[in-house]
């Protein structure tokens, strides 16, 4: 197998922002009727002018710092001209690193699970275009419709060096990046299409092929696998791979040639005259650093130091929400931390996924109540039910008429003697079932665990 080189350009919507990058339209465009989340600025009406959403700079800076990148003190917006129906001005306002321009930040890195370092060349801010809808398939549609609701949404683009050498590494990169983004509140998993990747793949030192618009880590991996074999086949047949742009067909899981060489991009970059330069001061960096808190690595280290095993630590550290709860429990009652780690990594993780939960309660006293009584909660389903209650913000109070083992043995003996005639000819299993029925009625389902243990003991004794 020859070597492949993979570099990524990851576009991430800054979903934490209230408004678009250059106007005051809402950044919450999903699910709105077409062309209702628009204004003169994001539809590029004649005479309209962009004004920068300062919050976008802060959010982008957070990501840049998490990726160990260096912010430029001054960076610029440029116009990137290309004609496309979803681009209302027929130029995109973006940042550029040539022609005297600087992006927001440069030279960062991200460590993969296998310890390899992927260099990040630059991170910059830009605006998202609108969307085109085709009636049926693109090839046969009689007309196309344009929705500008997404136009002007703030994006950051993260450009890596071609440092990944397998589809798995690229997938791992996207997954790790997703975690880092969620650390700063950008939960791309909750917003469809909010993370889009342009994948650059070259096989055996050949020309690089760019696969545009791949959504999500799993598809990135699949697209690279496909491209790897396509290029390999060409290589083996002696056909030269040409530098080109291809599109990822999510349904058929193949890449398709989309733009021929004759349209090799000529973007005619020029500085955007309507926007002043972006300045990043030391005090802004300080402020943003304070807001970010620690990284996944910091959290993982803390869990390991607490004696939590690697598997649990990995799971909890990957989600800032889980980790925050862990920390609070640790502060509330240090002896509960091991049990908390277990529950967070298993049951609570399960619930978050199942119910698409975005945030966990600030108040952990309900959870502490569950953990403190964990041993007496009769079964796993009840544990999960209580945890769900806590997550939903309901009051959790666990109060069982718990019975001690000694008392219960006497009660069991009494029940056996009262029903002796009925059970004496029954098989062990039937006998057990019959007696459990009576016991549960008397002591309640919540004591099932203890009842089973004690009934077994008694029956074994009198056998």
């Amino acid at each position: 197998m020859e070597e492949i080189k993979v570099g990524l350009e990851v576009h991430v919507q800054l979903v934490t922002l209230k408004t678009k990058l250059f106007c005051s339209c809402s950044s919450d465009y999903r699910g709105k009727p077409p062309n209702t989340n628009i204004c003169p600025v994001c539809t590029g009406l004649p005479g309209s002018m962009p004004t920068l959403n300062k919050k976008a700079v802060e959010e982008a800076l957070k990501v840049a710092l998490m990726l160990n990148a260096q912010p430029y003190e001054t960076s610029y917006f440029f116009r990137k001209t290309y004609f496309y129906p979803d681009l209302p001005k027929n130029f995109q306002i973006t940042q550029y690193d040539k022609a005297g321009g600087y992006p927001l930040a440069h030279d960062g890195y991200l460590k993969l699970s296998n310890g390899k370092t992927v260099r990040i060349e630059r991170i910059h801010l830009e605006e998202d275009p609108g969307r085109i809808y085709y009636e049926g398939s693109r090839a046969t549609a009689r007309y196309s419709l344009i929705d500008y609701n997404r136009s002007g949404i703030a994006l950051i683009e993260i450009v890596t060096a071609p440092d990944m050498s397998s589809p798995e590494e690229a997938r791992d990169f996207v997954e790790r990046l997703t975690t880092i983004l969620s650390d700063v509140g950008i939960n791309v998993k909750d917003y469809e299409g909010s993370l889009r990747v342009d994948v650059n793949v070259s096989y055996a030192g050949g020309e690089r092929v760019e696969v545009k618009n791949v959504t999500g880590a799993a598809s990135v991996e699949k697209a690279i696998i496909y491209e790897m074999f396509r290029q390999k086949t060409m290589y083996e047949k002696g056909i030269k791979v040409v530098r080109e742009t291809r599109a990822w067909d999510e349904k058929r899981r193949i890449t398709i040639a989309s733009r021929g060489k004759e349209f090799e991009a000529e973007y005619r970059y020029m500085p955007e005259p309507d926007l002043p330069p972006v300045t990043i001061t030391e005090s802004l960096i300080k402020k943003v650093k304070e807001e970010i808190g620690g990284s996944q690595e910091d959290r993982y280290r803390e869990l390991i130091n607490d004696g939590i095993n690697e598997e649990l630590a990995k799971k909890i550290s990957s989600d800032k929400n889980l980790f925050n709860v862990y920390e609070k429990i640790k502060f509330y009652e240090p002896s509960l931390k091991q049990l908390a780690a277990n529950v967070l990594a298993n049951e609570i993780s399960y619930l978050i996924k199942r119910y698409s939960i975005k945030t966990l309660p600030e108040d952990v006293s309900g959870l502490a109540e569950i953990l403190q009584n964990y041993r007496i909660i009769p079964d796993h389903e009840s544990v999960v039910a209580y945890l769900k209650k806590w997550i939903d913000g309901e009051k959790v109070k666990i109060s069982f008429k718990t019975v001690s083992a000694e008392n219960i043995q006497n009660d069991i003996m009494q029940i056996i003697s009262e029903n002796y005639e009925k059970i004496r000819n029954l098989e062990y299993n039937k006998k057990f079932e019959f007696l459990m029925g009576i016991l549960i009625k008397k002591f309640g389902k919540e004591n099932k665990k203890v009842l089973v243990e004690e009934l077994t003991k008694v029956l074994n004794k009198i056998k």
Partner: protein
Amino acid sequence: MNLEGYTLQLILREIENGSLSPEDVNEFYYKRSVELNSVLNAYITLLEPRSRAEGDLKGIAIAIKDNISTKGIRTTCASKMLENYVPPYDATAVSSLKKHGGSVLGKTNMDEFAMGSSGENSAFGPTRNPLNKEYVTGGSSSGSAAAVAADMAPIALGSDTGGSVRAPASFTGIVGFKPSYGAISRYGLIAYANSLEVIGILGKSVEDVKILFKMIAGKDPMDSTSINVDLKEKNISKPNILVIKSFVELSSEEVKKEFYNSIGKLESAGFGISYVDKFSLTDYMLSSYYTIACAEASTNLSRYDGIRYGPKVESASNWRDYISKARSFFGPEVKARIMMGTFILSAGYYETYYLRALQLRKMIKQEFEKIISGYDAVYVPTMPVLPWKIGKAIEDPKIAYAADVLTVLPNLTGSPAISIPVGKVREFFVGGQFIGLRAEDMKVLKVAAIAENVLQVKKNGRN
């Protein structure tokens, strides 16, 4: 009632003391405009008076250049491309006027997309000079100048990218004020060359343009390049002005004679007059100006693709065919500048042309700041020639050059500049312009007001 020769100041005063009613004023200008427009072609759109008498402007209707967005009133830029475009919003300058009780009298003719110096490049036909209808008005704010000069409007808004307010003011014998870059918000001004242009005012007197300037100047959150300039009255009685001889020498004999004559009068009235032989970068002003203007224009005008507004393309085989057809609605001058700008921004030429033009602009600004230091204003002719016959400039490119050479300096430096009539040749006037440092708008207005009073070129005007 006849308001011929009335200044805005006089109208407001007479409304104040009850001798005029705002309805009469609006009626007069409307009726006269309807009558004269078929000859002069000053207005593309004329609106029936319907305002209420309120605010500082008492409901008076004002002429607005047709590249300034007016909510619900079509705004064509004198182009087939925007023939039926009705903006859904007001330019900030227009909403400021409305807040002060002003209203829109009509939308004035201009060179298409403000590209031109004669007023002939309009899809609606050339504007004719009220002083002699066989002659050009100068441009690109041709209709605004003609309307004010012919008493078809009390005052008008224009825009000045390279002299577009001052040139027609000079050719029609009125006052044209180009404020500092950013002093009036550009939000809603349909962009030609963002880094050079500003909304300007054309009126019958320096006092008139000052009245309106104070109402619409100021920083606008919708325009990041806007600034607050000091609006306090300046206390100057004997201005010190600097004449750049090489600028005067570029002018025709008639203009030169009248201009030197005006210097003599100013000197006798106590002006301090100094001379500098040459502005060393004179030869680079126009090339720098056109390079920057065309580059910016080519991207600004990318948005006109016939999708969101503009004429419908009846049939097209694909998207590229569609936009080529849509873009054929531009006039020849606009097409030429788009092509020049596209070339200038192309890979490989960007550094050669665009970046050098930006460097030159910087050097020109530095030289200007150096020579003006110690003076209240620079004083030079506005136009080196008198108006020419309609159609003549198209034959003689030297005229087109002369039309721009003296006016672009303040656009390159961001300076305030005001043109006032300083001499008379036959039926025409010679305009002289006072240029100051950026943000010192009130200073040039003061100097111009004193000069206007000394020279008394238009004795028939009623103040």
